[in-house]
């Protein structure tokens, strides 16, 4: 099985997250509330994932893999691996940069990592659903609208959830962190039958 192209697609969201973190890392030294800044950092990382555009990269790798001789099963595994790998890379980057920025005390890595990983997995599922919608009904305008809508949703949700995660409060608790991680994993598992249906019925279009 040839995984390299799929793993490369995982690097795009990661690069977006890194870019966002660098921007916000620089902004951090200009002052401001670090909790809110961290929330924005993660939110913008998600937004950039969609802007760059990660979904398009996924949707290019699927037809490429099938048109270059992958089986549907390999394409499905590749899709899952790229989604999980991008989530792991993004979450790990978030934690490392958060530690480097000195705000780790606000939300320890042990809490931030599962929270970010779960959130990125959820975002991956969301992005996957968008991809399916685009494949099913998509056109350029539809894709643009869906992307814009998804960015707004992701920014709002992630800013509220992670940005305000006070370690002493509910959102900063281990329970919530691992609940988000569990939700992320469940979302990936729930998507599996739909992913399978999409990949197995996929027609490479001229």
């Amino acid at each position, binding site marked *: 099985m040839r995984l390299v192209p799929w793993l490369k697609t995982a690097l795009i969201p990661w690069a977006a997250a890194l870019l966002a973190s660098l921007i916000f890392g620089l902004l951090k030294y200009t002052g401001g509330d670090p909790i809110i800044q961290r929330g924005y950092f993660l939110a913008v990382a998600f937004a950039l994932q969609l802007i760059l555009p990660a979904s398009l990269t996924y949707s290019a790798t699927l037809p490429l893999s099938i048109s270059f001789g992958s*089986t549907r099963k390999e394409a499905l595994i590749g899709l899952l691996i790229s989604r999980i790998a991008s989530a792991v890379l993004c979450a790990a980057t978030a934690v490392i940069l958060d530690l480097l920025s000195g705000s780790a005390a606000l939300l320890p890595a042990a809490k931030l990592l599962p929270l970010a990983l779960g959130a990125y997995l959820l975002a991956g599922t969301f992005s996957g659903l968008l991809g399916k919608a685009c494949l099913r009904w998509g056109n350029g305008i539809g894709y643009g609208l869906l992307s814009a809508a998804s960015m707004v949703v992701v920014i709002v949700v992630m800013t509220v959830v992670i940005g305000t995660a006070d370690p002493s409060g509910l959102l900063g608790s281990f329970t919530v962190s691992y609940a988000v991680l569990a939700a992320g994993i469940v979302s990936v598992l729930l998507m599996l039958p739909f992913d399978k249906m999409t990949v197995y019925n996929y027609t490479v279009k001229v």
Partner: protein
Amino acid sequence: MAMVCNQLCKAYGKKEVLHNLNLTLEKGKIYGLIGRNGAGKTTLLSIMSNQNPASGGSVTLDGENIWENRKALDRICFSRELNITAESGLAQYTVKRYLAAAGAFFAHWDKELAERLVKLFGLDVKKKLSKLSKGMLSMVTITVALASKADYTFLDEPVAGLDVVAREQFYSLLLQEYTETGRTFVISTHIIEEAADVMEEVIILKDGAIALMENTQDLIDRARYVTGLCEAVEDATAGLQTHHPRKTGRSKSVTVLLREGEQIPENPDITVQSVSLQNIFLALCGEEVSL
């Protein structure tokens, strides 16, 4: 050693594109697949390469179903016109990245050949696919097809947008690769006359079914174009397999496909000529147009 389509069907919604199609592709031949727009050529090739699931029937390679068959898919390549839109995701790919992806997926990818072809075609590998002309995109698809080294290689409109020099280059490269490797090629094209010289066998697809499949030279040898006075033409071609009759005043013309042992009787009121492959195709698939 063959690829076999057995009772192949494909429908898009309610529209049936292929109807119980049967086809056998033997190893080591160059086939020309010709048909009108919408005849089902691309659909057929995409099903035979696992890129499009069939609605019914099967495709086997040396007796094994190709669907989800890694071993079989390692031996098949379908190189088609690239869809460079924002939605396809290919717009951001450079030539280098696209060829690298092909190299990562194709089991027998010949990197050296790909590099030689890129040089021969003068492709700028740093250029994005979205910035390439139609002809340049064709060169990329030809590079993928030849460098894939797949036993069964299908090319859909490989010369679209290519100038006459580049088209000659393509046919020459194709013959060279065919001679050296004995790979099987299926070329779908609308530029029939040019491709006729390299097609060992011709497959004519009409309305989702095989209308004719035959050795190209044998087909040309048994085709005749008969013109003359109406009655004389009708007398001479009575009982023969005629196609595409045309009447102009008292004159008539018709294309005849002679079966074994058949002849057109000599008659001073008719003229009998040989027919090009393009005109045979026209006779079989063309329709009278009236406004």
